[in-house]
């Protein structure tokens, strides 16, 4: 099958792929070049990419997407337990079930629009979370989270003569363990694929219709298009992305906990998308990376690290700086995150992508020789 892409899209895709695959090298200088965080970048990048197809294109703000992530994780772990430690069936089933779950919830929730839609999705996700945490413990293993056990049946593995012996197995792709860097590359390839699919959707008539849904539903109806199936399709696709992301979380780390479905987790993906720039292709991935970076790196700075960082200062000043900085890192990393949200929204309503575009415009305006003006300023 041949498909057509514009040159600039192809270039973007190639750059994106190169950046993802070179992640371990590129991100090492900022302390993020280790497998777990790289995996998280890729996985939450996928989650946010999917969310962006719904929210960025159609404008439907779902507050319950974490439910699909959770369903994906549970599905993947159960696949490991019952069928095989190979990640392929796990992520296929996770994507499928994420999509199915999204189809059911979306079908009901899309009967309403605006904040009413948001609250419906929130309600479904919170119900899933609360039940998974308590009553559904036989399926979800509650607070502890669903884990692998040595005694799991794994019928496919046994059928193919794969024996893990006395140790707890970890997922592997035909012998390549899915932890560490191989795990990251697996997720990274998935991210590139997902980015590619997302790009196709953005450029397709379907994507155009989704943007039309956001722009003017009324006109769309009088233009002979049925909005509901379009919105539902977008909802299901984003649910599948979430399911895949959840599945990958389980692939790289075979444990599925209920808190993945909590409203704060749903809120997180909203923040990632808006922070990066909703409705843009790249923004959600960047937003996901930024938030995960803060969560993992900023929270790790402790007083010792700070004292060292300011060791070039005279002692009195050093203490002051350590005290001020310690409000924002370590146990204060939430403060930094909150302040970052505010700053971005106030000054860069289009998210980080708008920031990059402005810088680019500034540079071309400055050095590109005349004519280049600043990107259109924010709405207000």
């Amino acid at each position, binding site marked *: 099958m041949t498909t057509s892409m514009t040159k600039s899209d192809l270039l973007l895709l190639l750059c994106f792929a190169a950046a993802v695959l070179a992640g371990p090298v590129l991100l090492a200088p900022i302390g993020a070049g280790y497998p777990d965080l790289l995996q998280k970048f890729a996985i939450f990048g996928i989650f946010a990419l999917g969310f962006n197809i719904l929210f960025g294109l159609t404008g439907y703000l779902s507050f319950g997407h974490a439910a699909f992530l959770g369903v994906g994780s549970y599905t993947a772990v159960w696949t490991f337990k019952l069928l095989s430690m190979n990640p392929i069936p796990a992520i296929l089933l996770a994507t499928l079930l994420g999509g199915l779950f999204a189809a059911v919830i979306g079908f009901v929730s899309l*009967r309403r629009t605006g904040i009413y839609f948001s*609250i419906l999705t929130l309600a*479904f996700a919170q*119900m899933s979370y609360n039940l998974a945490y308590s009553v559904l413990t036989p399926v979800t293993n509650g607070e502890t989270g669903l884990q692998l056990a040595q005694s799991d049946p794994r019928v496919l593995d046994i059928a193919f003569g794969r024996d893990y012996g006395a140790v707890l197995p970890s997922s592997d792709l035909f012998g390549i363990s899915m932890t560490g860097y191989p795990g990251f590359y697996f997720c990274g390839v998935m991210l590139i694929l997902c980015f590619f699919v997302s790009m196709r959707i953005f450029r397709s008539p379907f994507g155009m219709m989704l943007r039309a849904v956001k722009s003017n539903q009324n006109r769309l109806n009088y233009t002979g298009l049925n909005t509901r199936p379009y919105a539902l399709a977008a909802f299901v696709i984003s649910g599948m992305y979430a399911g895949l992301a959840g599945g990958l979380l389980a692939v790289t780390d075979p444990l599925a906990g209920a808190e993945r479905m909590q*409203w704060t987790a749903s809120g997180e993906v909203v923040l990632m998308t808006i*922070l990066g720039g909703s409705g843009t292709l790249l923004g959600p991935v960047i937003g996901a990376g930024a938030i995960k970076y803060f969560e993992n790196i900023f929270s790790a700075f402790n007083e010792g690290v700070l004292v060292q960082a300011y060791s070039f200062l005279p002692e009195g000043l050093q203490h002051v700086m350590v005290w001020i900085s310690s409000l924002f890192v370590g146990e204060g990393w939430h403060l930094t995150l909150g*302040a970052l949200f*505010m700053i971005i929204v106030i000054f860069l309503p289009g998210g980080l992508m708008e920031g990059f575009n402005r810088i680019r415009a500034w540079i071309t305006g400055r050095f590109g020789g005349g004519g280049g003006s600043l990107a259109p300023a924010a709405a207000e």
Partner: protein
Amino acid sequence: MDAIVLQILNGLDKGGAYALIALGLTIIFGTLGVVNFAHGALFMLGAFCAVTVKALLSLEKVALDPTQTTAWGTPLEIRTPYVEAWFGDFGTAMLNYSVPISILIAIPVMLLIGVSMERGLIRFFYKRPHAEQILVTFGLAIVLQEIVKSLFGANPIPQPAPDAAKGMIDFGVAIGFQAGNVVYPAWRLIYFLFSVAIIGGVFAFLQFTTFGMVVRAGMADRETVGLLGIDIDRRFTIVFGMAAVVAGLAGAMYTPILSPDYHMGMDFLVLSFVVVVVGGMGSLGGAVVAGFTLGILQSFASMNEVKDILPGIDQIIIYLIAVVILLTRPRGLMGRKGVMEH
């Protein structure tokens, strides 16, 4: 039967808190068109007004007693609150009544916080998309709670009711139950009456003052009112302050029921959004009715008799009701068409 009466009382109590928070949220929606995710933080700040008042009242004079040492070898500190040292018994009484006193102080403080929030941040977001309003107010909520955490720590801080209100009231006798069957803590009854009074006050204010009339007109049709040459923005600033005061009072009075901690706002945030939406965006009456209804139904769902039939129902009842109501009544109980549907 007495069990049901008790659960209704529980529900009214909870509902009072829900309704007070939701009332402010819905006023802000209705007038400013802003989705305020920092509203839970305002509730929390109100509660910490009470904590601060108590902390200030119990500022202690520290004297070292060299004859005694602590377990880690430093001289034992003899601590006496200044108010007791200065005012004697009256000081002790002030400490005892720190929660009611904090109510008086919370009003100007919360008004100030609300007004500065609106002037300093919210007003720039009137015409911005809801998603951005959510993000910026959520960011603000995080910042506020982290500041509180760095000042007061993460642990809950006990905030006892005044001794006079610590007892139980035999409520049942008044409505024909046997003595001792329907007894209820005095402070919780006070909280319920307090919430009714505040709700009544807000309604009366909007109904009977010219200021309120303008605000109501503004809720109905902001542009037209603006065209009449009325400075609607200034009034809306005050409305925001008012909503902050209502949330703050709800928080301050709630402290003897729920020991405050920095995170309590977030716990109430989602719930109060559900209440507002179930009541109908921008509907004052809806918020109140939904608040009390959800409170009572939540209490009923927690009864063993109900849980035996439907395990876990108490965990999801609020959300279940939200789903049912939104599917049967598209705009909540009392919502108007076209509000927040895009």
